[in-house]
């Protein structure tokens, strides 16, 4: 088990190890965390021998962790795939549901973008700043509209596949519609940082959770 001590950066490293091993087969997860725990301890021994400061060590630990995040996520997928190989039908159902959700969300994003693109509204001001990001509607930017629709739909469906489906498959499918519309609203209002933040969060969420739970 990974101990809960150390500086802020090291705590972050440990948090990440707990995060990307969460929900995996308990033995696999415990084994990986123990190996990370061992790696941290060996790094600490190395620091003492090399005469590094603790700050340098924690910075190096964080660098090694951040640089390895894509591989950690890939490793998680490897393990999930390995553990679901014996449930072919479940995997197929999950895939079909995800594809159906994606198609549905893309449709709604595209439809919402079309409506927005054909609706001229007065310039929106938030704290004295225009939030329309330089153009009045997405009709002026068909490329951006299409990209926003596809990326937004993908991000939200991915998030929904992981979280909502764990509660209920029906809720997951139903929730696609209002959330897709809400995301479209963010893009429409030109609140790009918020929209991007939400999408990145959704993508990371999916990556960490991996395949959705089995549909029973």
């Amino acid at each position, binding site marked *: 088990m990974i101990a809960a001590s150390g500086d802020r950066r090291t705590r972050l490293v440990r948090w990440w190890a707990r995060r990307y091993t969460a929900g995996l087969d308990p033995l696999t997860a415990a084994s990986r965390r123990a*190996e*990370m725990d*061992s*790696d941290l301890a060996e790094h600490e021994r190395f620091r003492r021998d090399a005469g590094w400061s603790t700050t340098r060590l924690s910075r190096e630990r964080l660098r090694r962790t951040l*640089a*390895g995040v*894509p591989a950690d*996520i890939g490793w998680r997928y*490897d393990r999930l795939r390995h553990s679901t190989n014996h449930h072919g039908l479940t995997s197929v159902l999950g895939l079909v549901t995800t594809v159906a959700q994606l198609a549905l969300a893309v449709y709604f994003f595209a439809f919402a973008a079309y409506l927005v693109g054909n609706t001229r509204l007065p310039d929106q001001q938030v704290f004295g700043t225009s939030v329309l990001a330089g153009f009045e509607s997405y009709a002026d930017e068909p490329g951006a509209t299409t990209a926003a629709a596809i990326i937004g739909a993908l991000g939200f469906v991915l998030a929904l596949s992981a979280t909502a489906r764990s509660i209920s498959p029906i809720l997951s499918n139903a929730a696609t519609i209002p959330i897709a519309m809400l995301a479209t609203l963010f893009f429409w209002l030109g609140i790009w940082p918020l929209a991007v933040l939400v999408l990145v969060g959704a993508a990371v969420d999916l990556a960490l959770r991996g395949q959705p739970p089995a549909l029973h």
Partner: protein
Amino acid sequence: MPRRRPGALLPLEVSILAALRDGGTEDRHGFALAQAIADAEESRRLTATGTLYRALHRLDDAGLIENWWEDPDDAAQAGRPRRRLYRITGAGVTALARSQAEADMPAVSRVAPGYAS
């Protein structure tokens, strides 16, 4: 990204296998391998944690290395967490030799006849 040819080793996998083989009878844990690879490549930076351990798992799944956890008493006596130790297998030695032999072979020209300058 191009798909990997079946049986082909990635550069990091070659480095890991080489570090295990060149370590002789010494069994190595992950961090020691990262150090050995950095030393061999004269790099000041250690391989990223996720990259290293994922590669180790791949090699293990492929049967090119084997691993086990050290005795808890040994770890307790040394006052540190248990180490997962790795060792190269016979298949790993063969795969490494083949990979290094391929790397030493001169590159085959892909220029069509008549187009060479």
